[in-house]
């Protein structure tokens, strides 16, 4: 694995090499560039165009330009904004606890503890599981009659069982817990790798100087971890805001739309009601919001003076 030092050296000698340069390089790039342009950039631009048409699933091409009509309708679509709000609550509700738990865990796993290997081995599982399976598994846990959660609560004397995923008040918290569970290992592993890039000597020097655990964290650990932490948090916010499969399997947006994330809403609009243009407009609004989120995070990253 490339260390930062190696990368720095590679950069320094790159000027001297220049062997990959020249027109030959294009032959190496085109096999990837063409599919990216045709199947990704192209469709994306086409998708933005569709947002300004009356495209519907029944026809292969839109019949009329409708200008900003879709966006105007969207502005007044209270259900969409409700799903948007739920999407934000879900994204923040998953990302923040996940980050804090993962940070604590990464610090823990960086210590010399006995069961560390088990934690690391187990952490692979949620990460590797298909989201659909994670959803199915938690449906089994949450099941009001045959699930283990209610049985455990009964055993602990914590009252009668609930139907967690169908309760108006409990559904969103219940799916957020699953979101935290599913993404925590990945965040932990990323933070752990970031921790292990921190030079040990710095910790030891700080300890010799009499710095307590909190001061060591603030002055040594966090500055080194910050770039990784910001990158993973920004990505998690975006991924969570755009997530689909987990909640589709857990609640399919129910009960009464309480867990209907924007992607679920757009999916229904496009593939159940066939409103391609309208759904594309939703996608555009989501991109705009995500871009703002990204910009805020990148600004934070630059303010910290880290090499970006």
């Amino acid at each position: 694995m490339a260390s930062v030092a190696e990368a720095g050296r590679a950069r320094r000698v790159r000027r001297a090499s220049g062997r990959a340069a020249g027109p030959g390089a294009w032959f190496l790039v085109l096999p990837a560039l063409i599919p990216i342009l045709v199947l990704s950039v192209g469709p994306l631009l086409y998708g933005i165009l569709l947002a300004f048409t009356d495209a519907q699933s029944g026809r292969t091409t839109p019949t009329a330009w409708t200008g900003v009509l879709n966006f105007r309708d969207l502005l007044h679509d209270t259900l969409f904004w409700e799903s948007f709000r739920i999407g934000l609550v879900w994204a923040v509700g998953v990302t923040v606890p996940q980050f804090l738990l993962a940070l604590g865990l990464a610090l823990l796993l960086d210590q010399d503890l006995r069961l560390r290997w088990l934690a690391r081995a187990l952490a692979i599982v949620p990460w590797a599981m298909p989201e659909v399976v994670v959803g199915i598994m938690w449906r089994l846990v949450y099941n009001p009659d045959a699930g283990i959660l209610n049985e455990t609560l009964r055993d602990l004397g914590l009252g009668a069982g609930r139907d967690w995923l169908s309760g108006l008040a409990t559904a969103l918290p219940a799916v957020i817990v699953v979101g935290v569970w599913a993404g925590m290992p990945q965040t932990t592993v990323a933070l752990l790798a970031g921790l292990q890039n921190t030079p040990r000597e710095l910790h030891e020097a700080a300890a010799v100087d009499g710095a307590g655990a909190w001061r060591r964290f603030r002055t040594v650990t966090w500055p080194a971890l910050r770039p990784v932490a910001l990158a993973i948090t920004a990505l998690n916010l975006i991924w969570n805001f755009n997530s689909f499969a987990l909640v589709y399997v857990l609640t399919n947006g129910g009960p009464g739309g309480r867990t209907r994330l924007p992607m679920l809403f757009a999916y229904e609009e496009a593939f159940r009601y066939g409103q391609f243009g309208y759904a594309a407009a939703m996608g555009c609004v989501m991109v705009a919001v995500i871009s703002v989120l990204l910009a805020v995070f990148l600004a934070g990253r630059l303010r910290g003076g880290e090499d970006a």
Partner: protein
Amino acid sequence: MRTRPAARAGQYAALLAYLLFLAFPLLWLLSTAFKSPRELGSLHPTWIPRHPTLANFRQAFDEQPLLHAALNSLLAALGAAVVAVLIATPMAYVTARRRGPLARAASGWVVVSQAFPFVLLVIPLFLVLKNLRLIDSLAGLVMVYVVWALPFALWMLTGYVRAVPVELEEAAAVDGAGRLRTLVSVTAPLLAPGIAATALFAFVTAWNEFFFALVLLKSPGNQTLPVVLTHFIGAEGVADLGPLAAAALLATLPSLAVFALVQRRITGGLITGAVKS
């Protein structure tokens, strides 16, 4: 560094809590998959099946075309992994070895591609594939998965290429090896583990993918495993718990095996990418 005993105890308590949180749904899935229908109907569920049975697995295969779906998933994932690596490796080589607009565009692309709401991508793709008569076909799905896996593949591979010292290539050049010769006999062998890790990552991603498969594949004979799994959950959300658990368990095993194999390398690849982009 010395740690006080009280702090140590606290650390172990936290670790234990984490292990419980991580393990209990997994163990429950395992337990449910091996329970008899009678036990599943019991009002006081137990952790350990009293009469462990494989009947759920048999019933799962009877109810849904699991084997066929697994084959579809395998084909889609293999196709995506092989094609993605074949076309990403040369590009990663170029972006790693030279600075310039191309390298900047590539790393910018990686970031931007993470931000797409897939719905904005899937509607036009649906129309394009429909016009190409590739809708409801594995070939069409593989094309989508390749492009979907490319950003991360590029990201990981660029890191791996940077880890191969340029000096080795230069030494080969001094010894009179041509550019192609250098790439094939010096760079490629050093890059091979990284390429393998990237391919396996693309494989797992495609194996687990749900949204595109749900939208693009309509006929039951073409559907992949995650889509078929959702058929176990009825329209009203009523599910046959035993077969559902059994099928879910089976669907996880391949990606778990692959992931256990290369998890360390994937983490490394992601981190080097994240820190340097």
